[in-house]
């Protein structure tokens, strides 16, 4: 089979070979015989319909579960218009905007995305994306080493931190040789007194999250920010755009960098496919990793957009670049901006308020179930909460799976339940099922 995506007819191929002056295509390959590959991969070609069937058959082996899952990867309802507009080929099949005159559309969309993050955080500069929240946190840690006022080499993170995030951070700090240490948490939130004991001049970055990975809204962010500032450390806050629509502005609690995952707006459940936010203060502008879209002026005197300050980036500054990131998550950012605009500020705030009341109400209902106590932590929750199970959590989670529901197992007798509008109609079913398996 020839590639279905190479348009050449046999006649055209012949004519082209003649124009080049060779008899066959193999003559164009300058590969020494000793390293040439003359075997097969053993991969069969398929017609398009057969290829679709093959993929559908494989993926069909996934169980169909109703997921009350979160802990960093969240699902909200994504309106159809986002799919429709974002998959327009001019967006989907374009490249990084190295020729801005023919890429104004995407550049403007990314400029709008950056602006939305500026509004949500109150900080000055958002880049046009990192891979996910974990890599964005890693980049924040390395940024601390490029900030003159910071002399420390320790990153302080909350004791409750998703393992995947901690593991990525460990790889990012390995190169610059930073240490990662945890500060304790109490009742699902940072133990600020313990943090005050732990912090010293060797700390380069203090990281906190709101909501925390256990779904609790942090109530003493300003105290954490002040501690960081007092010790010449950066304060990095992890959050997400839905939460930021309602919660205190990061700028108002002293955050120097905001990271997090923004893909819950614009992209549904996608096995951890993410969109790393990275927003910081203007004074760190030249230390920002990744791409920035700026507004300027074209030869007609009109406002136009372009990638700017590219001397920070790897293709110019090579080993002295602020990061090695090149391709990022631009198209995911496009979708996030579309979704945010579709919601508007009132829709976004309504959604955020639902993220507060829904887990509160669901936790109250679960607390009435024999064998369950919820929520385990006091305080306000966002999207999710932890519940205590009298039965071993593993058994509860397994039994729920056989009833068609997925929740997190996070301890011997702890489960975590995430609830958004997409699982609203399944809440009654979850209660019924868990009532059977938890007693």
């Amino acid at each position: 089979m020839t590639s279905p995506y190479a348009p050449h007819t046999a006649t055209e191929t012949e004519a082209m070979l003649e124009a080049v002056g060779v008899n066959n295509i193999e003559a164009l390959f300058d590969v020494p015989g000793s390293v040439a590959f003359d075997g097969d991969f053993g991969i069969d070609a398929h017609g398009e319909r057969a290829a679709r069937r093959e993929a559908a058959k494989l993926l069909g082996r996934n169980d169909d579960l109703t997921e009350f899952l979160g802990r960093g990867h969240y699902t909200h309802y994504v309106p159809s218009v986002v799919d429709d507009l974002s998959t327009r080929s001019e967006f989907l099949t374009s490249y990084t905007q190295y020729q801005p005159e023919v890429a104004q559309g995407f550049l403007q969309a990314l400029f709008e995305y950056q602006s939305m993050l500026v509004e949500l955080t109150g900080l000055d500069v958002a880049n046009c994306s990192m891979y996910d929240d974990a890599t964005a946190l890693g980049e924040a840690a390395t940024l601390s080493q490029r900030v003159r006022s910071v002399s420390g080499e320790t990153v302080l993170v909350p004791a409750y931190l998703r393992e995947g995030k901690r593991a990525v951070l460990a790889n990012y700090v390995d190169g610059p040789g930073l240490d990662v240490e945890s500060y304790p948490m109490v009742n699902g939130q940072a133990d600020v007194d313990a943090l005050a004991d732990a912090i010293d001049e060797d700390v380069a970055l203090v990281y906190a999250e709101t909501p925390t990975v256990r779904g609790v809204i942090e109530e003493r962010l300003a105290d954490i920010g002040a501690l960081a500032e007092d010790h010449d450390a950066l304060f990095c806050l992890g959050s997400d755009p839905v939460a930021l629509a309602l919660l205190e502005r990061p700028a108002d609690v002293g955050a120097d960098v905001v990271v997090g995952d923004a893909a819950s707006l614009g992209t549904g459940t996608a096995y951890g496919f993410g969109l790393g936010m990275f927003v910081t203060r203007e004074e760190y502008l030249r230390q920002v990793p990744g791409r920035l879209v700026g507004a300027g002026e074209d030869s007609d005197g009109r406002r136009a957009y372009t990638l700017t300050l590219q001397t920070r980036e790897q293709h110019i500054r090579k080993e002295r670049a602020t990061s090695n990131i090149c391709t990022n998550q631009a198209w995911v950012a496009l979708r996030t901006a579309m979704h945010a605009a579709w919601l508007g500020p009132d829709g976004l705030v309504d959604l955020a308020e639902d993220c507060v009341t829904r887990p509160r109400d669901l936790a109250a209902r679960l607390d009435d179930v024999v064998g369950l106590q919820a929520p385990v932590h006091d305080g306000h929750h966002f999207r999710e909460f932890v519940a205590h199970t009298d039965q071993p959590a593993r058994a509860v989670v397994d039994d729920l799976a056989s009833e068609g529901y997925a929740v997190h197992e996070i301890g011997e007798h702890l489960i975590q339940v995430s609830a958004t509008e997409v699982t609203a109609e399944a809440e009654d079913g979850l209660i019924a099922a868990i009532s059977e398996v938890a007693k």
Partner: protein
Amino acid sequence: MLSGHFDLAVPPPGIETAPSSRPTSLTLDTGVSRVRYKQASWTDDGDRYEPLLSEKAPKTVDIEDSPLPEELTRDSLELPAPAEPELARHYTRLSQMNYGVESGPFPLGSCTMKYNPSFTEDIAALPSAAVHPARPDSTVQGTLALSYRLQDYLARIGGMDAVTLQPPAGAAGEFTGIGIAKAHHQHNDDDRSEVVIPDSAHGTNFATAAMAGYDVVELPSGDDGRVDIDALEAAVSEETAALMLTNPNTLGLFERDIERIADIVHDAGGLLYYDGANLNALLGRARPGDMGFDVMHYNVHKTFATPHGGGGPGAGPVGVTEKLAPFLPAPHVREREGDDGRGDYEYYRPDHSIGKVHGYYGNWPVLVKAFAYITRLGDSGLADASAKAVLNANYLAERIPYEVPFGPFHHEFVASAGEQDAADVAKGMLDHGVHPPTTKWPETVAEALMTEPTEGESRRSLDQLAAAFGAVHGEDDGTLAAAPTRTAAGRIDQVSAARTPQLSWQALDSDD
């Protein structure tokens, strides 16, 4: 304009060019004329194009009576609130002011902008693909099965023994691969401090090595555009952790001495890293594993046609030989033994895993699209893709009036704009309905025009592309400096944009 011959001296309507001396060898006999093009451009008044969403539909809401105590909430939120019809029109107009592979030829060297088959989108959008990453292995056997199959496909294609799918882009793949090399050396109590990189390499290679904590040793290219063996021998030492190399290199040239290169690096105890950016040249003809590479990344966009999405998402799977497999990121998919009803596949942590490079499993939907593409093409289709990519590059090079100093090249070539400014050449080409090549890189060619047409262009389209090169070749510097004129926006002043950074609509407002 449609005639039996194509005359480079005749500009298309609307384009002013100075008379030029026409290279006689460029008379085409394919009945192809130059493309006429005018990109859509929306503007509502004199000083801007399509207004920002914030200018069209601003709205502020005060946060009142929220379910949270007031001290935990912000006071207000100001964001655009377009109604859906306005939203649809906004983004449709923006899309019309953007150029993609489906718009026209996109010969951006080293970026491999080939056609992205539509059906892969449908597969990635299957509801059964949309699972949460925290699901137990036994409930996502389909996802694990597809991942395992893709790992296997990629291993076969690269001649590697094991592949991780976790890195979310090529640069993340480099970071993973160099991290694996570092872990391997540390495991052997062999501390090494340097990574050797040719001067013509992608900037990511240098940045990656630095991020991983290595010193970079830059390797000058030889006169033939390839690795200079003497320089390599001088650069490699007991401090060498790895040599990062792409083959064919950024000039499109195959490193013929690759076995010798591998011996030099291996004899010094270093590892050989393959940058997969140019793998689209070699499918079915040579494999990095057979050339002596120990670790490599694949760019699924560049080789397996996943859409670039205007700057990502990508995916950068990493392949390794058997001795490096224990260092792969966690978790990794393998077949399960036994038949206990918990499925055929499972995740496990390789013995000496470097840990994680992405918070979950990487850019999953992109990986699904790559799987779909490989499944569609199979052995024969993949080999044909490389054949046509190499044929197209060679054919196009024959048809353009710019000199190509280095060869024989494969899927891409680097022409020199000579006395012209390569960046201006690129701006001029924009007016001809084509995307220009990568310019001014690699620096081993003066005023470089790095050109990679890919297999997706037909002969007719290549002739049109050649005509665009030809037209710009004949234009004077003044005309090129004023280009482009037929694009959504005119030439953008990069200097003032950088001197006065305005990175948000808030920054625009504050300057008013």
